[in-house]
């Protein structure tokens, strides 16, 4: 039984003690010319996807070709990205530049572990106006800018064109259409839809029904009011009432996109990442997309964004900022867009032919106008766990909507109050 030894957990804590001293202060450097900036920076990226990882490697090589005096070492973290960075931060051994997810932002920024980029942005000629405003706010805290958005993704509805055609159905335009199409397309082991027990999908419904996850001052969880109950009742009705949806793992898939590719689900609510995935893994499946139809209260979608930021302890602030500038700049983002991984966070790429010529990409890009950034502050992992458990217990038939949400709100509130 090679289970985790008690000692291992303790040794992890012990490393905090061992690495007591650390990080010197910023040796700002007098360089005022980009070409004069020197230094070596460690740059950590989440490398869960081999294709994305090799793209990052290429961009970093391009960067070093452009700035020969700056050396970048790529540190790929395949899984548990935030856990790894967190441990490195506590040991004062974090990389200089890193992906900043909203989760990372939420624990690192309040503890002063990320570098405020504002002064460096003006020094090196980066303007906040270059980026889509809703994508800048997740990285802001008390007037400071802790990262720049490198790209974003949001949710639309993808549908299997051949299955729709075979059943004589048109592309849906409303939730009523989706519901009846899901019923029509459910046959045997194939479901019309696959909605997972995941707050990262459900919250689009929640916001569309006028609900909120947190109160406006973000001190209380409120996702158990009547609007939230209606949203979850609707979300679960596909599976529980119509039997036209099922969890991806019940369909023999690892995630909804997998079920969609295997043609076990005719519709899924996913983001731009589905496009290269389908291209690489299930190239023969023909599909289309629509923006999520208007919910009873408003149009809604969720916005997921990642940024590049710097450690507050980096000794090469200028080099790090130039790196962030490059990785969020037009050259890189245009390539990201063409690779199909994510949408550009820059305004100047909104009219790029890669967006305007591809209806699926255009749907995704346009959804950003009404999408809400999916981030809930320092306690979001607990809040999302609570939400996920509520959704799961409803979908597994273990609990009714109201008591599941009440219990989840109670859990989230105890996390928010520091319990």
């Amino acid at each position, binding site marked *: *039984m*090679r*289970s*985790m*030894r*008690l*000692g291992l*957990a*303790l*040794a*992890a*804590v*012990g490393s*905090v*003690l061992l690495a007591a001293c650390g990080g010197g202060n910023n040796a700002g450097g007098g360089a005022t010319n980009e070409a004069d900036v020197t230094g070596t920076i460690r740059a950590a990226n989440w490398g869960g996807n081999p294709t994305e990882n090799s793209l990052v490697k290429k961009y970093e090589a391009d960067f070093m070709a452009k700035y020969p005096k700056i050396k970048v070492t790529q540190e790929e973290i395949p899984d*548990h990205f935030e*856990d790894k960075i*967190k*441990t490195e*931060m*506590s040991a004062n051994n974090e990389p200089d530049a890193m992906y900043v997810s909203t989760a990372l932002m939420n*624990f*690192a920024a309040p*503890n002063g*572990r990320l570098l405020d980029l504002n002064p460096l942005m003006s020094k090196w000629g980066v303007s906040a106006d270059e980026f889509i405003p809703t994508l800048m706010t997740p990285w802001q805290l008390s007037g400071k800018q802790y990262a720049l958005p490198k790209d974003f993704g949001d949710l639309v509805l993808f549908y299997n064109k051949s299955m729709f055609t075979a059943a004589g159905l048109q592309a849906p335009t409303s939730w009523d259409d989706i519901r009846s199409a899901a019923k029509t397309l459910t046959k045997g*082991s194939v479901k019309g839809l696959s909605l997972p027990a995941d707050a990262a999908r459900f919250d689009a419904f929640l916001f569309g029904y006028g609900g909120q996850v947190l109160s406006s001052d973000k001190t209380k969880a409120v996702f158990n009011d009547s609007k939230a109950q209606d949203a979850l009742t609707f979300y679960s009705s596909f599976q529980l009432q119509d039997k036209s949806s099922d*969890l991806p*793992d*019940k*369909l*023999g898939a690892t995630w909804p996109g997998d079920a969609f590719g295997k043609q076990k689900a005719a519709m899924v609510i996913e983001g731009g990442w589905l496009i290269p995935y389908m291209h690489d893994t299930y190239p023969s499946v023909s599909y289309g997309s629509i923006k999520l139809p208007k919910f009873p209260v408003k149009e809604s979608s969720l916005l997921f964004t990642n940024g590049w930021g710097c450690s507050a302890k980096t000794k090469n602030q200028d080099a790090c900022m130039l790196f962030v500038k490059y990785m969020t700049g037009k050259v890189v983002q245009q390539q990201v867009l063409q690779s199909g991984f994510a949408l550009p966070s820059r305004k100047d790429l909104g009219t790029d032919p890669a967006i305007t010529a591809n209806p699926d990409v255009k749907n995704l890009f346009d959804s950003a106008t009404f999408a809400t950034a999916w981030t809930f502050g320092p306690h979001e*992992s*607990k809040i999302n766990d609570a939400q996920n*458990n509520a959704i*799961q*217990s409803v979908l*597994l038939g*273990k609990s009714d909507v109201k008591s599941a949400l009440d219990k989840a709100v109670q*859990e989230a509130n105890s*996390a928010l109050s*520091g*319990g």
Partner: protein
Amino acid sequence: MAVSVAPKAPAATAKVNRRSKGGGMAIAQRRAGLLFVTPYILFFLLLQLAAFAFAIWVSFHHYDLLALDNPFVGLRNYTRLTVNEDFLIALRNTTEYAVVVVILQTAFALLLAVLLNSKIKGRNFFRTTWYTPSVASSVVISMIFLYVYHPTGLLNSILGLVGIHTTEAYLQSTTWALPAIMFLNVWTTAPTFMLMFLAALQDIPKEIYEASSVDGASAARKLFSITIPLLRPIIFLVVSLGIIGAFQIFDQAFIMTKGGPLKATLTVALLIYDNLFVDTGAVGVACAEAIVLGIIIFALTLISRRVIDTKIEY
């Protein structure tokens, strides 16, 4: 019994040596001895004892991995555990898991050992194949079992062959997820303990069996009246190692279910990990949980010693 006798013998010889031979030789030997154990002692002091002491210290503080100030909170981390729903769920799951796994794997290991100890055909073949699961890394085994338990995986395919058609997703079911991990663990761990039993079985003097045969004892009678009583020390070893391992269950649950669905496979070690890394502010709580877990394992080992490892006389 090789295991229990081994540590005593060298100590006894050392004592004799020191007394019989005088002066320089003994000191040189002692130095050499110290030199040999130093790497381990350093490793132990630094990475185990220091970390352990630090964990105790942390458990009395509100400790945030990234904060600079970590105030002393006395016993609060411990007292809050009694009302911490996640901890109670984890403790219940872990206990349930440990009880089932320890009983099954001990019984299963003994059974396999007795079978191998009898003169069956192809003994070496069985010995090798049965031991294989214990050689592979638990991570690899867990990955393989993800496919075994998959709705269209091996298990359901086999069930299909015998006429039971199901697409049950075992690891996504609150009923089956924990038993699925239990089964996997019994399967991987039992062979290791089988080897221990086998070694012990071969130490039991043949004469006792012969004498009992003369008295007309049946095979079952021999098992329960001779084999099992004489195996007591090794049963204690297997049970206590089993308890220690089972209460620390982490990797299988971490890889296969992440504690889900609905906390059905949330174990104490998994909760410690979550508190440590996912929730940065709860390092103190994680350490308190780790120490409570340590105390539980320690206590259970002592109890099992009391119950099992009693002297027997013939």
